[in-house]
């Protein structure tokens, strides 16, 4: 069995790397070169596409806009989720199970369902085309996601630690910020990562709730798809750039990554 699975692993890794390799080669070739002739190994790679992205305001502004609402959303989610996850992991209270389940349904809710009402809601309160709109809209899944992941990690910390702090005479605030949060810094790291990723990745709500002012990178990338005369090189370069933050951060959260993906349930 293991020899078969070892072969499957190798095959799957190759299957995984080929498209990424192709993305990189495309990013290093100019558009004319790409449509010119088909090459597996680029003969004259250039960094023009990357230069284009960093110089063209449409692109780097879009990156900025995306970062804007994503960071906002991540901060809101983590600040709100920390106390809730602590309470879920430490106490039983009226309706705790139902509330925990309700949060899960929001994490799993298809964004398409909320497309229409969000559009109306945010335009009616004048928040349309502002970073706060998308940040708040994304809270729909990032907050439940954070609560579930953090609760999964926090219930691993024995409650005797809390009781020990009480007996030592520490106030709850001191315990929470100087003892409990440092103990869970690994969990908070991976939760921040997941909020960032979920918010950075979402297209539907981001596109609906943003106008020209706050157009995020996800929209810029997909909009160029439908226009004719598409510049593949620049698109590939932009794609490569969005992959980089993920890879860099994954090294720091690699220990807790799997638990994060399983919403803290593994």
């Amino acid at each position, binding site marked *: 069995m293991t020899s078969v699975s070892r072969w499957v692993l190798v095959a799957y890794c190759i299957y995984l790397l080929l498209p990424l390799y192709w993305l990189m080669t495309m990013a290093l070739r100019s558009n004319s070169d790409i449509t010119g002739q088909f090459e597996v190994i680029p003969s004259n790679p250039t960094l023009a596409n990357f230069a284009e992205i960093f110089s063209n305001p449409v692109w780097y502004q879009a990156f900025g806009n995306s970062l804007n609402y994503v960071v906002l959303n991540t901060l809101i989610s983590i600040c709100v989720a920390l106390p809730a996850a602590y309470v879920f992991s430490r106490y039983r209270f009226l309706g705790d199970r139902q509330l925990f389940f309700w949060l899960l349904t929001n994490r799993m809710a298809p964004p398409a369902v909320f497309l229409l009402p969000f559009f109306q809601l945010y335009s009616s309160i004048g928040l349309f085309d502002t970073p706060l709109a998308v940040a708040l809209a994304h809270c729909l899944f990032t907050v439940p996601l954070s609560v579930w992941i953090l609760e999964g990690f926090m219930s691993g910390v*024995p409650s005797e630690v809390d*009781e*020990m*702090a009480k007996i030592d005479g*520490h106030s709850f605030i001191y315990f929470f910020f100087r003892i409990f949060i440092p*103990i869970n810094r690994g969990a908070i790291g991976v939760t921040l990562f997941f909020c960032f990723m979920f918010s950075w990745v979402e297209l539907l709500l981001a596109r609906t709730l943003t106008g020209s002012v706050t157009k995020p990178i996800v929209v810029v990338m997909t909009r160029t798809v439908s226009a004719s005369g598409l510049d593949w090189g620049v698109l590939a370069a932009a794609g490569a750039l969005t992959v980089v933050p993920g890879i860099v951060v994954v090294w720091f959260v690699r220990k807790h990554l799997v638990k994060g993906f399983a919403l803290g349930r593994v």
Partner: protein
Amino acid sequence: MLRIQNVLLNPGLNCGFDHDFLPGKMTVVLGRNQAGKTNLCRLIAGLSTQASGDLSLHGQSMNNLNPQKRSVAVVFQAFVNYPNWSVAQNIASPMVAANADKAYIQYRVAELAGTLGLGDLLERMPNELSGGQQQRLAIARALAKEAQVLLLDEPLVNLDYKLREALALELRSLLEASDTTVVYTTTDPKDAFTLGDDLLLLDQGKKLQSGAPLAVYQKPTGLAGANLMSDPGINTFPWTALEGQGFSQRGAVNDSLANEEKGDLGGVRPEHLFFADRAGEDAVSFKLQVSALETSGDETFVHGMVGQELWVVRCPGMLNVQPGQELTVAAAKRDILSFGGV
């Protein structure tokens, strides 16, 4: 002085019990698992528990004080330390909470670490320490609080027996001098004798009896209390087994109180039995069918049947007795306990 009144250790009980813990002394709370020992500790410390009762320390009620306000320190059964703090920070924690000044904390941490053999581990993290060292750290932190009451909830149960022996004596010398009221819970009667100035016996949440270890050992108020004070428990026999040995039921020297469990019953502790080669007239003897043998070097436990009852005889040193042998085993008349049926 720590006083607890009408304490109900689990909600199912109907009548609570009172107890005064001797100030500055060490009280051992002895009871089987699930007897309510941990609930009692949590009640005194003010932690969440089903137990209920009125607590007062030096006259002032502690009932509605939260744990931070109670002058109570605790050592849990599982070695609980702050995983994100070094050994020094762990010990300093209660003093930091009481915002003592820096120099005093520095000095006190060094002193406590020294007495508990953690002197050269101050910068280490708790998970780098062995089990014994982690529990010493928890004890050091509890002492750092300089509370008037110190609770130790079966602190040694998870340690090797050689470590347990050493730490028990260390605890005794550490706490003997101090004027802290210490409450130490255990299931092992040996701890009761080693550490206990006073004893409190618990069984299913009820207080059986209290008093000095020797008094409780010699004057059990019932079968349950007698069983707690010997490991393995009391050997019992129907009075008929003593026919013709010049022994009247009520004449037993330490005529203990009636007991409700099994009706008229005689009892003898495993360590009071000896093999019959020197049974004088002031002793009674029984026929024992040896079934098994256990030895720990300095003591041997001979398991066997006396009539219908399974007995254990505990004798010093190593014995070469074979299972299947029939031996006569005797005990001094004064060591016979009688549990008259109610």
